[in-house]
């Protein structure tokens, strides 16, 4: 499970995936623009692997998750699930594959139907895929509740009667109902209080060890991603700038943006800081800089960085970096 490089077909393969959104700008919607949310992403997720995807708002990490779940279709490139390109598969052929990929969202308040009981919410995916009879489904719901640490008496409760942590457990139970091969968790603990956050992280780790489900863990929180992932990919303005097994990444962050992120995270154990503020802000994905997208903020930028987009180059087994200076 800790092996980040499976030798068979990976569970998920993204091959030069691009997703552009058309937007209208200006007061009357006259001007058109293109947001390059995802701009040439290539990555794999192995069976049983937890891949962490980190980056700041607008970097495209959530869009990557949606493309893998086929909640959205790429503008170009391939999204393969068990070797089959699902990016333009018709819904009829997609349906059986949907079972394999489930999502857990950030906001357990808005991602659960307020008019359904907790039990029904977890039963719903089983119904939708015509799995089991009534008694069988009831038994599955009971088992799923137990698995995520929800009391069985809560099956008749409505989401608004549950705490934030309980709702997130419910969202996880729903995601597990179809025994998926991959769960895409998009900021699953960001809306929770610290003490509850630890409960949910531990739950996800335990479930992963028990069920061998793979995870794509999308988050802005570097420390949480480091804790839970086997491998981590760092995104900046629609592109992956560095990807490695987590111990390699956190021991040797090589892309200047990975370094900046790690320096910016406040830490409980290094005392009062008088460090200077990081340089600049993320440019708009509507009009990303040419060449390396990070060059406008990068202390190492050279001429070539302003002209040519660096590609991901392998600098050590399983460790890839897109930087003209650090990985020439």
């Amino acid at each position, binding site marked *: 499970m800790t092996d980040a490089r499976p030798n068979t077909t990976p569970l998920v393969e993204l091959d030069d995936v691009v997703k552009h959104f058309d937007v209208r700008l200006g007061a009357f919607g006259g001007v058109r623009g293109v947001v390059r949310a995802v701009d040439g992403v290539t990555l794999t997720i192995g069976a049983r692997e937890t891949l962490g995807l980190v980056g*700041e*708002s607008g970097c495209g990490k959530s869009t990557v998750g949606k493309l893998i779940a086929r909640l959205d279709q790429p503008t170009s490139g391939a999204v393969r699930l068990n070797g089959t390109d699902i990016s333009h598969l018709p819904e009829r052929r997609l349906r059986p594959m949907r079972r394999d990929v489930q999502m857990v969202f950030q906001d357990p308040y808005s991602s659960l139907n307020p008019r359904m009981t907790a039990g029904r919410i977890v039963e719903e995916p089983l119904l939708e895929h015509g799995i089991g009879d009534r008694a069988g489904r009831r038994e599955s719901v009971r088992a799923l509740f137990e698995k995520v640490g929800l009391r069985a008496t809560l099956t008749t409760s409505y989401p608004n009667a549950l*705490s934030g*942590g309980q709702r997130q457990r419910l969202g996880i139970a729903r995601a597990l109902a179809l025994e998926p091969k991959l769960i895409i968790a998009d900021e699953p603990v960001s809306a929770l*209080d*610290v*003490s*509850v*956050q*630890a*409960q949910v*992280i*531990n739950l996800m*780790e*335990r479930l992963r060890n028990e069920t061998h489900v793979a995870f794509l863990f999308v988050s*802005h929180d*570097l*420390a*949480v991603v*480091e*804790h*839970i992932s086997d491998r981590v990919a760092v995104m900046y303005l629609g592109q992956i700038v560095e990807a490695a097994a*987590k*111990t390699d990444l*956190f*021991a040797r962050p090589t892309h200047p943006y990975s370094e*900046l*992120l*790690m*320096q*910016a*995270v*406040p*830490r*409980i*154990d*290094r*005392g*009062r*800081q*008088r*460090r*200077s*503020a*990081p340089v600049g*802000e*993320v440019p708009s994905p509507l009009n990303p800089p040419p060449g390396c997208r990070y060059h406008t903020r990068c202390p190492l930028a050279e001429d070539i960085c302003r002209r040519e987009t660096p590609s991901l180059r392998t600098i050590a087994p399983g460790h890839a970096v897109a930087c003209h200076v650090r990985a020439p």
Partner: protein
Amino acid sequence: MTGATEATISASAMPDTADAPILRVSNLTVRFEMLARTVQAVSDVSFEVKRGETFAVVGESGSGKSVTALALTRLLAVPPARIAAGEVILDDRDLLSLSETELRDIRGSDIAYIFQEPMTSLNPSMQIGRQIAEAVERHRNASQSAAMARARELLELVRMPDAESRLAVYPHQLSGGMRQRVMIAIALACDPRLLVADEPTTALDVTIQAGILALLRDLQDQTGTGLILITHDLAVVAETADRMMVMYAGRKVEEGPVDAVLSSPRHPYTEGLMGAVPRLGSSLHADASKPLAEIPGLVPALDRPIAGCAFAPRCSYATGQCRSERPALTTVGQDHVSACFEHARIGTSP
């Protein structure tokens, strides 16, 4: 006063050095009285903030930290809120007994607030230069042109790039981090003696957060203003604050110099919060695969009296005494207090 060393250093450059507190809160108690129930959101909370000092108030949702901050200048809606007891002393005046008109002068000019979400605090249809200038005019008898000049200075002070041309932009044209800089500029418009920042960086990306925290620290060094930093993030506290108070279920459960509290917490809730957060670099340590330390259970409801210590049902150190008797704050170190019968055992068991 070990907790004040930083403050003393920065204050020593100031004309009137004073270790005397600029704000003293005693026995603050706030209730929300609704038709069916009464929630005691803050119970008997006391603390002080000194000049140039950053005082962190730490807790999770429902701990009473934000209610405490709003109660200082009676910003809570009455009803349902009622400040049932306590004093908030600023310059020998009890803010809780002032008239609304007198308080309005205090807000902004003596105590200014910075909130989490700048977009909801800014007027979306007014240029930011005008919004800052209005804050200047409201509290100083400045002419319009003088106020606008001051607005530009303030934007430069908060390191807004290209300040002059930004005076004419609207809030939606700015990023979240830049909006928060505008909010800080408005808060600084009248040189407040005390800034209250309620989760000022929680909605921001980590690189932007680092910039805002660095800015707050620099401004404090320059102006000597006191800062109450309300946050759930102990790492932010570790890097920015001098002293801290941890709140649970509306009460202060631990208070002391940041270094002392974080290096040897004396309340199980503080210890629990510290263990519940993964730390950057954890994968490089031997115990990398260890699960996080959970605080089991949930925060208690505050609409009925709690027998004993409110944390006892979630506490691994709890004894029979904890469940029947409420622990008072006791001194556990220099300037360090904890409300825990078992404080000597913290860090020794499970």
